[in-house]
């Protein structure tokens, strides 16, 4: 496949088709509607299922129904739609059905605006619905990484029978970059044994998240937690830059992570011993690695397009070993390289870190 200029929303939609997406249900919402538009033609062209639902509530429940049939299925949305989907996400988590959701975050709360934001971090990693569960949350920082995340998302969802969220933001969805799409992959021929396909020659399959006996539900929860522990153990992903000799550490993901790559370059040009940890999974969070780095560096600067959400996970990992500072923009504003740089320089001078 050739490298081509691709818009983020179109890129992840087309990548999903090539990774074997069999059904898409969605509701238009800025800034991700191009994905739904792209799939409306492509899925039918491939003889697969596309349906524009009457709401995000209906969309996620259509996804749930299709996923119960054991096919590769997804939806995509932005914050206000994600809020509506949380009911369905909880049922999906409770019945351990593989589903992929893309959230192109926009400014909130409420109707907010349609500019990029990272303020759905809590929603995606910790509060995606009632009850005890975490989805796997992937956080790509470029159109190429977004494309690759789709393949990974389906693989992880099916491997663990879990919910996987691909967390982007308005800028990642709207930007055009050169990237390479995967080749078309064959669709799976068989349905998993747990799927509802009609009870032909077997006992009926029942997919439910209801366990009325407390002892039973506790067992289900213990099994879920054991699975989440496995995911924590095996699926933490992050990118580390120039941490070898770093005395200061930037922690940022997605678009903020990209901005911090520029900050890092300039800071290093100025001679500041800085490194960058960019989580590619927000859940599970690279807690262990961050804790190790906290033994090495003298201070941490967290950069987010929110009022400080991942910040809490960073503080939890660092456990007060070194000072943790925060630079955040909200409401659809994007951190500027020079602002983050001066924040970093202030931290350096407070801690006596010199070039």
């Amino acid at each position, binding site marked *: 496949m050739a490298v081509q200029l691709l818009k983020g929303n179109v890129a992840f939609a087309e990548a999903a088709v090539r990774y074997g997406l069999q059904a898409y*249900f969605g509701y238009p919402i800025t800034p991700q509607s191009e994905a739904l538009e792209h799939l409306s033609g492509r899925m039918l062209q491939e003889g697969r*299922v596309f349906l524009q639902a009457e709401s995000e*509530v209906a969309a996620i*429940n*259509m996804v749930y129904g299709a996923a119960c049939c054991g096919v590769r*299925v997804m939806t995509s949305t932005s914050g206000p739609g994600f809020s509506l989907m949380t009911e369905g996400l909880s049922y999906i988590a409770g019945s351990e059905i593989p589903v992929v959701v893309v959230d192109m975050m926009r400014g909130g709360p409420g109707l907010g605006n349609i500019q990029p934001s990272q303020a759905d971090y809590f929603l995606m990693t910790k509060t995606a619905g009632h009850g005890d569960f975490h989805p796997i949350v992937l956080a790509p920082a470029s159109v190429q990484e977004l494309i690759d995340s789709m393949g990974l998302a389906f693989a992880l969802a099916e491997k663990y029978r879990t919910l996987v969220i691909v967390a982007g933001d308005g800028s990642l969805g709207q930007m055009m970059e050169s990237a390479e799409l995967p080749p078309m992959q064959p669709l799976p021929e068989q349905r998993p044994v747990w799927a509802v*396909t009609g009870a032909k020659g077997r006992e009926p399959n*029942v997919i439910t*998240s209801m366990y009325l006996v407390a002892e039973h539900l506790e067992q289900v929860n213990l099994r879920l937690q054991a699975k989440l522990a496995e995911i924590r153990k095996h699926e933490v992903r992050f990118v580390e830059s120039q941490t070898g000799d770093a005395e200061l550490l930037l922690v940022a993901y997605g678009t903020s992570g990209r901005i911090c790559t520029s900050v890092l370059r300039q800071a290093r040009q100025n001679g500041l011993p800085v490194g960058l940890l960019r989580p590619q999974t927000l859940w599970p969070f690279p807690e262990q690695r961050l804790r190790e780095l906290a033994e090495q560096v003298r201070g941490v600067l967290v950069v987010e397009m929110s009022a400080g959400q991942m910040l809490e996970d960073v503080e939890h990992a660092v456990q007060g070993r070194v000072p943790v500072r925060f630079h955040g923009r909200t409401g659809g504003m994007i951190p500027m390289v020079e602002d983050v740089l001066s924040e970093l320089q202030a931290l350096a001078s407070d801690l006596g870190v010199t070039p």
Partner: protein
Amino acid sequence: MSQSIIAPEEMELAYAYPASLTRAYTHYCPGCVHGIVHRLVAEVIDELGIRERAIGVAPVGCAVLIYNYINTDFVEAAHGRAPAMATGIKRVNPDNVVFTYQGDGDLAAIGTAEIIHAANRGERITTVFINNAIYGMTGGQMAPTTLQGMVTTSTPMGRNCQLAGYPIRMSEILAQTAGAVYVTREAALDLAGIRKTKRAIKRAFLAQMHGLGFASVEVLSTCPTNWGMDPWAAMQWAKENLAAYYPLDTFKITDAVKALPA
């Protein structure tokens, strides 16, 4: 006088337990109509030979455990979302026969958007809608279909429509959608009504199996426990009151559905 003795295997079968009905005891209250309608659904599934093709979508409400009683593949939907789940299932499994079984709170309150749009899209699904004018599982609160003046645990002085809104006639609304091919209201309140309900359910399944569109059967029912009546009195009350506000009628039937084999 001697009569020839007929061997059992040569006798005409007059009664059998439906293969699509499990042997589980139901959790329903004495006099509840759910058990009757479950059996009708199971008999229809048997008669159409679709037990191994059928996928049911269970509601939230008293019938939440229907998958323990009907012997087919099942999924359990969130409250009101059964038509959306059924849509997802039917779209990826067009050869399966997909049905929802919903109560009045599920279909006529929290799930109105889902049922109307599923009907309007002409989803090839079958919906059985139990209307007993009350929330049973949560303990007898007002349903969207509760009649004016009916006492419930959330309308202790009787439903005041000026305050709590009016009982909603869902079948009449569903019949307005272009995608619906068969919308009818029956009453499982006496033997004749039960037989008629079964014919309607069969027709609604057949409409789906012939790919015609959305089909629903509303079934007027009772809730002796939460109405505070004995089962017999509840049946009589329903015939006099529920059926007066919710007329038994077929609100939509296309020619293609009419032409289906009975």
